[in-house]
């Protein structure tokens, strides 16, 4: 087994920098998500790995085999890369049965008939579609088509599996089941996987590592928990989860704790503080669900405010609260009282970000 390594990948379309110097290592057997808003370059990155696009710069290799090295003009065509790929539209060939769709690559490898039949039966069993060999794609439901596409991608035992928003065409309900199922499937095969999605919940749920992308760049690369709890930039914090931002200035630093003055007279205490000096401007990010209604008026980090509006999310309430420090998004299990409220922002829930980042 070998890692998939991407170094300094650049892809331009005329004036558009679709991929801007991306470097990533996908450890062997792990599932890595490329997460970011539409148009940020996820598909282009994936297509460069697959050999469907020619990068302008950069190296891509798998287990020591160089797939692409722009500076040395090495470019392996897609058919020789031993990859499996699932496309957003599934791209099942409509004029072929499920069996023929799966057999396409195996026949090109000149495998014996029996072997082909055995492998297809095995992989269809694995995706829960045993016995569907003779069906045509149009005779399958969306979820079944998605699983055939996955079966087709892995049937020739590729070194790397690439998935481009494979769940985005499914209904919300099916999509959530498919998420679990896909994760189990990947764990079972232990296949090195790159997974493209714009859905943050999906990325957090199924990945070993998440790379958050914006405008062609990777902003942060790490395990889901780290991405969620320790976002490195305002963009990442904003893109993932419901987050509020408070502008402030460091007023004091002691015992590994930071005090930050935000709007008005309010000073907040931050525990997980990187090295910041008093007087430095910073932005504090806080997740909506980490904010609570204060019961004890004398506790630390209490912010007074007025409830502006509220929506019911099914199991929780999300409210907008106007405070002297700025507007806070708050998610609570119980309804906030109308009018004046006191909110508690636990010191360990506050993340310090550089001030000018994003908008």
């Amino acid at each position: 087994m070998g890692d998939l390594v991407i170094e300094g990948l650049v892809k331009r379309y005329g004036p558009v920098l679709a991929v801007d110097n991306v470097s990533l290592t996908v450890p062997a057997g792990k599932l890595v998500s490329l997460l970011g808003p539409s148009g940020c370059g996820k598909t282009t990155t994936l297509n460069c790995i697959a050999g469907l696009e020619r990068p302008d710069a950069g190296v891509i290799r798998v287990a020591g085999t160089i797939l692409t090295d722009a500076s040395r003009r090495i470019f392996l065509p897609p058919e020789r890369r031993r990859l499996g790929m699932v496309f957003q539209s599934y791209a099942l060939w409509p004029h072929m049965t499920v069996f023929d769709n799966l057999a396409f690559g195996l026949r090109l490898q000149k495998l014996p008939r029996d072997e082909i039949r055995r492998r297809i039966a095995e992989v269809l069993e694995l995706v829960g579609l045993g016995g569907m060999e003779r069906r045509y794609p149009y005779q399958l439901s969306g979820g079944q088509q998605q699983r055939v596409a996955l079966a087709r991608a892995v049937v020739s035992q590729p070194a790397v599996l690439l998935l481009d928003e494979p769940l985005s065409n499914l209904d919300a309900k099916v999509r959530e089941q498919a998420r679990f199922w896909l994760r189990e499937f990947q764990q079972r095969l232990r296949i090195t996987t790159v997974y493209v999605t714009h859905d943050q919940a999906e990325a957090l749920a199924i990945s070993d590592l998440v790379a958050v992308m914006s405008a062609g760049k990777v902003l942060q690369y790490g395990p889901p928990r780290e991405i969620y709890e320790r976002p490195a930039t305002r963009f990442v914090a904003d893109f993932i989860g419901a987050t509020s931002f408070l502008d402030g200035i460091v007023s004091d630093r002691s015992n590994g704790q930071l005090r930050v003055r935000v709007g008005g007279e309010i000073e907040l205490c931050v525990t997980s503080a990187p090295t910041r000096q008093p007087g430095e401007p910073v932005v504090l990010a806080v997740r909506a669900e980490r904010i609570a209604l204060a019961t004890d008026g004398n506790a630390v980090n209490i912010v007074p405010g007025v409830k502006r509006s509220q929506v019911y999310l099914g199991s929780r309430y999300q409210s907008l609260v106007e405070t002297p420090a700025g507007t806070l998004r708050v998610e609570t299990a119980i309804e906030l009282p109308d009018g004046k409220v006191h909110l508690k922002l636990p010191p360990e829930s506050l993340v310090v970000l550089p001030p000018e980042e994003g908008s």
Partner: protein
Amino acid sequence: MTATVEAARPVTRRSLDLPVQVALAAATVALVFFPLVPILVQAFSTRPLYDPVRAFTLSNFTRVLSSGAFWSVVGTTVAFAALTTVLAVTLGTALAVLVERTDLPARGLLNSLVILPFYVSPLVLAFAWAVIYGPQGYLTIWARQLIGRDPWNLYSIPGLAVVSMVYYVPYTYLYCTAALSLSDPQVEDAARIAGAGPLRAIRAVTLPLLRPAITYSALLTFVSALELLSIPLVLGTPAGIRVLASYLYILGIAGGRIDYGAIAAISVLTVAIVTALVWVQERLVSEERRFVTTGGRASRIRPMELGTLRWLAFAFVMAYFTFAVLLPLIGIVAQSATAFLSPLINPLQVLTWDNYRLILETEAYRRSIVNSLIIATLGGAIGILFMAFISLMSYRSEFPGRRALTYLALYPRAIPGIIVGIGFLWAFLLIPGLGAVRNTIWALMAAFIMRYIPLGFGAVSPAILRISPELDRAARVAGADWLGTTRRILLPLVRPALLSGYILLVITFLKEYSSALFLFARGSEVIGTTMIELWRQGNSGPVAALASIQIVLTLVVLAASSALLRRR
């Protein structure tokens, strides 16, 4: 099952992708330049091409441009083409709005009737009109008896333009119906609600929306009419009316001293002007595309109610079809089966098979039918595959020269048929070793295929562009090279378009004559060239018989294809 990581897939055999692509591109380049190069060389040469001692000169151009005959031909050509365009576009637009947008009765039937002339050779249409409306035509004599003088003169520029109008109406009609079916009918409803009557709504809303389609059809018609040979040749020659194409034809068959330099210079000038017009047309298409995408695709809704005008409009369309298409076609069939066709004689008394007997018993005539059939069926098959591959290379490959290839594939539109024929003939004369091919149907097949690359390209490209690129990407990732992907995925998926493109080529090749006129030889005659030969000898009966045979063959192809397409 675990993924085993090996190196990249081993190279079992070298992919043939690049060699095949290069070969296809080279074939396209060769086909398109084959006829152009000798014409260019000849246009700037002092002596005929076959003469090894030649020098560069501009005198061919100065001679042509200072000749009064040439300018009078240019004037006639432009007048003829302009009048044809005005008539065809006006009628085509009116018919499109009536059939596509109003509650005309039997609209499906009318639709088929209006596009019928599209399938008829203009040569046949010319002969057919002469039978009914010529100086000795059936209706002409009848009307002359009635009013005591000639009711009309078919052998005049307006006469030629009216016949050509019939041939070109389907072009405007098809473009306008396509544009109408894409635009939103609710804009007309809005005009009606604002208080406009149906005609007012059409004038104020529908027609302005159609403007891109109308402009495009007008240019297309104008360009085709500029190079049209058949109708001006058959109906204009008796009255001494000459257009560019018939002028070239006369110059080329002059016998004795042929002025090669003048022919080449006129060809170069014509191709240059048509190239410019085609370029303008191309610019319009890209704008029209933008136009169409902004309007949403609307579902068909209730057509506009014409009220009392409804039956009047129906009568108008039926009258047009009857007098412009049906009567002439019946006339030519009647002519072929009688010794003498005139309102003064009961045709049943002069019924005869002589015309058909002459055609079928003369070896050269019979051969022309067989040749036409072989070129149409075999050449059509080779042609459509070739054109499909060019389109696949243009739109579905990483071939480095694919954009240039697309332009090249579409360029033959700018070369009039008769000039294609001249160019091919000269190229065969000029290039040693090709002599064996020159007098065979393969030469004609090559010329026909070259001339209609744009037609086949246009017929299959939309289908190719409609296939999601992810389908071929999936095949590439699964291990197929470009050729494998093309053969196993793309070609099977565009099979319906290949089939209808094939039928289009078969019908087109069956009626093609202009590029064959200079190129055919003993043994490689086709129906069109034989018809013109017979016409020059003054044999109107056998011409009618051959024309009828061509009509029947076309109808058979159409019937077979609609049966075939329906079965799918």
